[in-house]
């Protein structure tokens, strides 16, 4: 087994772990955290695809790598919005 496959399989397992946490945990903050664990898994699977596409003197296919990079930033933006929603919900609850 190549190390790309190994990391791809790890990514698949992380998707499972993250999804389970999102469905089972009840604390909204921990759900957001599990969403990020899941995201890491998805990116790793894609990273394995990029590594397998190594060629032309590059260690990996630069196109999926660039898209993972974009994805990381978008995932952060989504996380920040989700956290802001949770905090707003808690402060609304606080006033009641």
């Amino acid at each position, binding site marked *: 087994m190549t190390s790309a496959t190994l990391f791809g399989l790890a990514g698949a397992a992380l998707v499972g772990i993250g999804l389970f946490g999102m469905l089972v945990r009840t604390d909204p903050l921990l759900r957001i955290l599990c969403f990020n664990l899941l995201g890491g898994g998805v990116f790793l699977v894609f990273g394995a695809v*990029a590594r397998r596409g*190594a060629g032309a003197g590059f260690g990996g296919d630069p196109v999926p790598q660039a898209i993972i*990079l974009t994805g990381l*930033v978008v995932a952060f933006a989504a996380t*920040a919005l989700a*956290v802001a929603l949770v905090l707003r919900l808690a402060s609304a609850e606080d006033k009641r």
Partner: protein
Amino acid sequence: MIADLLLVAAMLIVALASMLARQAFTAVALFIAYGLLLTLAWVRLAAVDVAMTEAAIGAGLSGVLLLGAVRRLATQASPPPEQPPGPAMTLLIALGCAALAAALGAVVLLLPNPAPSLAAPVAANLPATDLGNPVTGVLMSFRALDTLLESAVVLLAVVCVWALTPEGGWGGVPGAAQPVQRDGPLALLARALPPLGIVIAMHILWVGADAPGGKFQAAAILAAMWLLPWMAGLVTPPPIAARWLRWTIAIGPVVFIAIGLAGAVIEGAFLAYPPGWAKPLILIIEFILTASIAVALALLVIGTPDTAQRR
């Protein structure tokens, strides 16, 4: 290979422990460790640009964002907890998640051989951009539209976070007030680190054209260097009504679109760069986007304006 197995085992254990942690703080501490391990995994996958972004955003900014939320929620009455699923349901969910993971694993094992790759076309067309880093080439030229949309997503996220402002707080100072610490270890770091961090961010941005690095990594470092003095209570963020603040986060996408439209007029395609102008135009976009994204990322961590804290 031994190193990879060790890394994968550590990653899975940390992820599992983070998912199962009883306290939010423990979960976030483990999540930061997970980000550090992922950084090493990206290096092993020969994706150094991604490793840098993971170190800056995955381990750094995301962790601090979640920690800030833990801190704020600790002082507030939390909404009534939801009922967790019962044991039978939990088992069912576990089986479903395991099936999904197994299916994804099968996909990984059944990937076509030889792997389809765009590495060769990228290598063939990279000289036209005068760039040495293929990932920057993809981000700024071959798939520039994705990067443009992404910068718009970050801007939109800031607008959405601001839109959650409670009644009467609009236009105020974003985020919770931070306890002021004029001296002590945090103030020391908040004063000593930013000058060094700004130099490093500029270095990462500059080498990004030819070596791993670039605007996202640089922007994340700059955001962290603004957040440190904010956490120490040494600086107050500008009120969100400030014009210059709004212009700063918008100018990156605006310049990107303007250069794209100029390409449509001159070269006949949106975001097409005239021959010989690719590198200077890319560098202009990168520099301006870095400033916009850095401020936007920091504002995302700082959060929604509070009614309690007004100018």
